[in-house]
């Protein structure tokens, strides 16, 4: 009888030991991976976005663009000031608004509004936008990100809660991203 087909008692125990470790490792890996991906999966399950009030309609004069700030709806105890967010509110007329994200559509720097030249300008790479948020010049491929808004009981509310980025802009505009 050749030794090739036999397996020693200790050899079998070693293989069972490896298998046992593999099973335990897999069992532990499942919660570990779920933990690591929690910031992604949580956003998909419950969504990070919700309606936030920016103040009364009368706070925003017609024909002007004003800076508004809000506290992000999803916060953790250590966020400090970083959970405060700014946005540009343009009241065109009556209940017609446009609410722009502060983040440049190029690489996210904070754009500033200049009523004199009626332009939004970015301090980082020279992006510029017209007053309606459309791209005027510079490296951005598109206009400013806009938050969906609604007027209810005299309050302006926007649907916000995620950092607007060029790749995720579809979600922000109210359309669902392809994989949601």
């Amino acid at each position: 009888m050749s030794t090739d087909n036999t397996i020693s008692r200790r050899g079998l125990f070693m293989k069972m030991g490896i298998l046992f470790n593999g099973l335990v490792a897999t069992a532990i890996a499942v919660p570990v991976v779920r933990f690591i991906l929690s910031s992604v999966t949580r956003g998909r399950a419950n969504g990070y976005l919700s309606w936030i009030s920016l103040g009364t309609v009368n706070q925003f004069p017609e024909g002007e663009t004003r800076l508004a700030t809000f506290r992000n709806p999803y916060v953790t105890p250590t966020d400090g000031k970083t959970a405060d967010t700014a946005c540009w509110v343009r009241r065109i007329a009556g209940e017609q608004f446009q609410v722009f994200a502060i983040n440049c559509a190029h690489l996210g720097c904070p754009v500033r509004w200049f009523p004199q030249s009626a332009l939004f300008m970015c301090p980082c790479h020279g992006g510029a936008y017209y007053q309606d948020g459309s791209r005027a010049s510079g490296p951005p491929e598109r206009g400013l990100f806009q938050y969906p808004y609604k007027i209810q009981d005299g309050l302006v509310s926007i649907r916000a809660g995620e950092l607007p980025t060029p790749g995720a802009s579809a979600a922000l505009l109210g359309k669902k991203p392809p994989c949601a």
Partner: protein
Amino acid sequence: MRLIAKIGEWFDWRLQLAAPIREVAEHQVPKSTASWWYVFGSAALVVFLLQLATGIMLALIYVPSASEAWNSLQSLNHDVTLGWFIRALHGWGSNFMVAIVLIHMVQVFLFGAFKFPRELTWVVGVFLLLMTLGMAFTGQVLRFDQDAYWGLGLGASIASRVPLLGPAIVKLMLGGPIIAGATLSRFFALHVFVIPGMLIGFVGLHLLMVLKLGINEWPMPGRLVKKATYEHDYHELTQKDGAPFVPYAVWKDLFFAAFILLAVAACAAYFGPFGPSGQPDPTIIQTAPKPDYFFLWLYAVLSFLPPAMETPALLIGPVIVLGALLLLPFLSGEGEKSWRRRPIAVLTILLSAVTLATFTHLAGYTPWSPHMDAWSSDPIPARFLRHRTALERQGALVFQAKQCHNCHALEGKGGQRGPALDGVAVQLTQDQLIRQVIQGGGNMPAYGKNLTPAETTALVAFLQTLHPAAQAPARDASRAVAFGGNGENSSAVRPSSQP
């Protein structure tokens, strides 16, 4: 003395370390490698050890919380005895480490040290470079100020451009939907545990390979590397013309390492720590974020990429560069080592150095950014206003009030986003000026909706006066035929009289 020797013997009998250490220290190296060109690797290691030591000291005070990090840095800078100096050592150590790792890489490349049998040593070295840059970036994030905050936004914007997975990668990177507490915590984990752990492992591997394969001999023009004969030749060289590493070569490493440490300490003491700049409060938008020195070139490149190139360049560019670095020893594993006979290698280094230096220099004064306050702080030079009509002066007012000055310079003052306008009237006719102002184009926004016809007329009248005294403004020759006379159809806009 006998007692010390006895204690030493007692320990070594149990540790059995003296023999292997002596073997490593006294291993034969080619005499030609005892050179000042061969000191950068050990210097990088010494600065890395400095970073470990100072990093641990900073961790005694630093609080990795988005609400407290900035305050704890202020406390380090101002309250804790010599906290500012430890921060400065760590910050300057970081700059020195990136610089020395790059110089080391250039030296290895020019001396052909990546060729057979040291291909894997080079590949591990490329990963060490990536980790060093990773440490520099994550370290900048831990200095949780405005630059760090918006720098993270920049990183998120780049990551979001990955097809399909982009939004998920952003949330994984930020640890949530926005840049906040979880973001800082995970960058702290990366900077303090993950990347240093990998660095220590890879540095050990890198050193082990240098020891096992031997240090690259001084490249002689014409002495070609052949896989069949190299190991035999190298062995012969270390036997015939070799010397023990300690003390024959090591003294230069020691001197250079001490010099570098002294330089880091001198910079730290003289220039002090980096930042932190303003508080990481996203509602403070009066800020112009900028990355640290070694990422400035990237900041400049990002402003020059045309919009259509942005995503492909950001996603494909790094893959190509990394691929080229990793494949280099496998595509060019044999042959000539000496830089004297590798002109393309030398040109590659020169071209890369000039390119990176140029972009870094440009990022120093960001000509692509409008000067946000030029319209209110840079007056129009008086000589452009003297002997001008009321309309032309009105145009100068429009020029300031509508912030043209933010992008266009006059006499070197103002923005550099668009061309300087000192001689614009020579280049553009009246019609062309009107068209350019109203419709924009060539990276200029259109001002048609923002200027009344009267303002446009005044502005163009002013712009038409902007030409050197000895040069006439541009004129559309067909106008003379169409309108008769000197070709002017409006009394408002007339040739200016230069003083």
